């Protein structure tokens, strides 16, 4: 038998439940994730291998949750005839299912249903557990593989920290927080995923099966002793991993020196034994330096002085995105670039629906939109949500006057927009005008719509214009 690089090889076109498997997305130590699209279970003449009586997660059914058109299917080889037949895989699948079916939180990947494959002709697949999950656009690991460090790093970290906070508050420890397990969604938001090593807290600690990713593991778990229940992990385990992640995201480098995981492991040991001090990258900004230093404290006891909620406050402050401030104008995301004269022909807004910039597979991915707070409309000085940003939670009749001003638009055009509306959104569009008080001016008057443009809720994209609007208002629809 030829070994596939995927832990669970699933042929394209394979059907399970109401899903048809498309291409592979990712592979972990324990299972494989495939993209899938929803088909009606009885369509087509092809043989259906699926267990059509698969168990649905009732919470979603009650909430009237529709299954999405596309999803990510995570196959865990829990069948009795799978080549990698491991009892503990079943335990990992159970952990992940238990956590995800109980915990619905904004920053935790959403589980739609779980299925069991019934495919007697395929011993490798028969009995596999399938988690039907929200499909992400990319992982943070994929983003970090393309230097430089993402401009929206601080905003990403706020969301990762929110995820940890939601998880810890619910009484779980992630146990394997790393870039590959932080997923980025199409709307630019973050989800924590991969809970196979997560553990439910019993008092102050939890037991995890003892797997770990060395680069993201705190010193006390590095070749740690094991009890019969496995490895003891604690919320401080995730805090350490968050410190490593923050350093990686903000500087592009690992906090400990060394070109290989083994060399960094050595540095970790020397640091933990007090033989060396932590030497963080000089690129790390001051407020973040304190956060990362606290997360990477040598011992559990020192780290345990902090928890996810105190960390979240500091991370928000460091990222400059406190949820209380209403206007977040003039936030310098990175050093402004010389604006290239725009080559816009007409200076009109492009159709935003088709201008979504997230792309898969080697293309540029713009994550500056991450910086836009929830329930806000954000305008940016550069493409793809980069550059300077002004954001509002409501309409504004005059950008350059009144309590909320967006000064850079006096001299520079708006290049991209994101309407980060809530779900469900009270307003489904934001229209904007060159004139004050939602009135058309200049070129607006030549357009049928008598406005500069209108962006639908949750849409984002680049504007082709060389102008900046002067006012905007939220509308029921565009």
């Amino acid at each position: 038998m030829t070994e596939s690089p995927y832990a669970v090889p699933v042929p394209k076109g394979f059907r399970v439940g109401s899903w048809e498997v498309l291409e592979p997305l990712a592979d972990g130590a324990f299972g494989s994730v495939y993209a899938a699209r929803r088909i009606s279970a009885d369509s087509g003449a092809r043989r259906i291998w699926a267990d059509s009586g698969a168990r649905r997660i009732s919470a979603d059914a009650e909430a009237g949750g529709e299954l999405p058109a596309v999803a990510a299917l995570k196959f865990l080889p829990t069948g009795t005839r799978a080549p990698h037949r491991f009892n503990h895989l079943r335990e990992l699948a159970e952990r992940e299912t238990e956590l995800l079916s109980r915990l619905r939180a904004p920053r935790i990947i959403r589980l739609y249903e779980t299925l069991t494959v019934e495919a007697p002709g395929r011993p490798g697949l028969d009995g596999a557990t399938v988690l039907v999950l929200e499909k992400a656009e990319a992982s943070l690991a994929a983003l970090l593989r393309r230097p430089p460090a993402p401009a929206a790093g601080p905003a990403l970290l706020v969301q990762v920290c929110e995820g940890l906070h939601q998880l810890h508050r619910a009484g779980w420890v992630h146990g394997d927080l790393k870039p590959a397990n932080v997923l980025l969604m199409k709307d630019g938001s973050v989800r924590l995923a991969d809970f196979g090593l997560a553990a439910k807290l019993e008092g102050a600690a939890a037991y995890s099966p003892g797997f770990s990713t060395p680069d993201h593991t705190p010193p006390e778990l590095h070749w740690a002793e094991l009890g019969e229940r496995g490895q003891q992990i604690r919320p401080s385990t995730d805090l350490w991993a968050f410190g490593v992640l923050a350093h990686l995201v903000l500087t592009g480098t690992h906090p400990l020196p060394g070109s290989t995981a083994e060399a960094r492991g050595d540095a970790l040991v020397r640091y933990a034994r007090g033989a060396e001090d932590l030497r963080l990258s000089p690129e790390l900004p001051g407020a973040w330096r304190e956060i990362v230093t606290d997360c990477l404290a040598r011992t559990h006891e020192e780290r345990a002085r902090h928890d996810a909620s105190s960390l979240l406050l500091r991370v928000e402050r460091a990222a400059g995105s406190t949820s209380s401030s209403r206007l977040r104008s003039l936030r310098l995301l990175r050093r402004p670039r010389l604006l290239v004269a725009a080559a816009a022909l007409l200076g009109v807004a492009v159709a935003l629906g088709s201008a979504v910039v997230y792309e898969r597979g080697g293309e540029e991915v713009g994550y500056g939109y991450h910086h836009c707070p929830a329930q806000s409309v954000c305008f940016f000085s550069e493409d793809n949500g980069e550059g300077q940003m002004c954001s509002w939670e409501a309409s504004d009749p005059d950008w350059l006057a009144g309590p909320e001003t967006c000064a850079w638009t006096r001299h520079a055009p708006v290049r991209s927009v994101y309407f980060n509306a809530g779900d469900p959104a009270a307003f489904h569009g934001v229209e904007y005008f060159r004139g004050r008080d939602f009135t058309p001016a200049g070129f607006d008057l030549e357009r049928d719509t008598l406005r500069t443009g209108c962006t639908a809720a949750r849409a984002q994209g680049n504007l082709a214009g060389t102008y900046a609007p002067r006012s905007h208002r939220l509308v029921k629809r565009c």
Partner: protein
Amino acid sequence: MHSIIVVPPAGGGERTAHGGRIELASGDVLPFGRDVPAGGLELGHEGVPRIAGEITAHHAFWIIDNLSENQTYVVENPEGAGEHIKIAPGRVDAPVPFEFSRVVLPAAGELLAFEVWAPRHAYRTASRSGLSGPATAPAFALDRTKRYYAVLAALCETRLRGAPHAPVPTVDQIVERLRPAWPSATRSSVYWNIDYLAVKLRLKRGPEDHEPGLRLNGKKESLVSLALRFDLVREEDLVVLGCAAPEMAP
């Protein structure tokens, strides 16, 4: 956090914690010789230089310096069918690739030896190379060709064959069970392997460690439950024992 363990020659030196074993973390240096500074490994023999050499832990392996004037040291792999490396006098930073080794020093017509263990040697599945990103690593990396694996398999055999509450076999039973595949197995070599497995699998040292009798039984029990819980030995792995289980005595 240690990755290398040095086991002093039997009988020599005073007994300290864990049978006098010296644990080295990556970067730690251990000098050995007749007259070494405190903390070094003392080899009390007239034929050994005052400072005979140094061992340095490096990641999961170790390097050795031969600081003698004219004696070649030999590092043997006890399970390697005579596999060994020679360390010429004056050689520094010679890497040793074996998981366990016996360092042999000639000393005035005698041979002195001590052991060095490198239990953190890692293995991964070749078929899963080429995947990007740091992998989530399993907690244990066992070499299924080593004798310790056969000992672990023998310990788990009865429970794997469907007697979940069977008592763990005694050391004598294990010796008997291993004999077909390993004719020279003895009680002491089985003890040695059980000790090594406890280090390899990073068993938590329990309070019963102070009582020798309890200690062995507790160790065996813990090894079996850990191995079964994490599928370190599965039924198909029992082939390392060489032949089918003998009939149970009535």
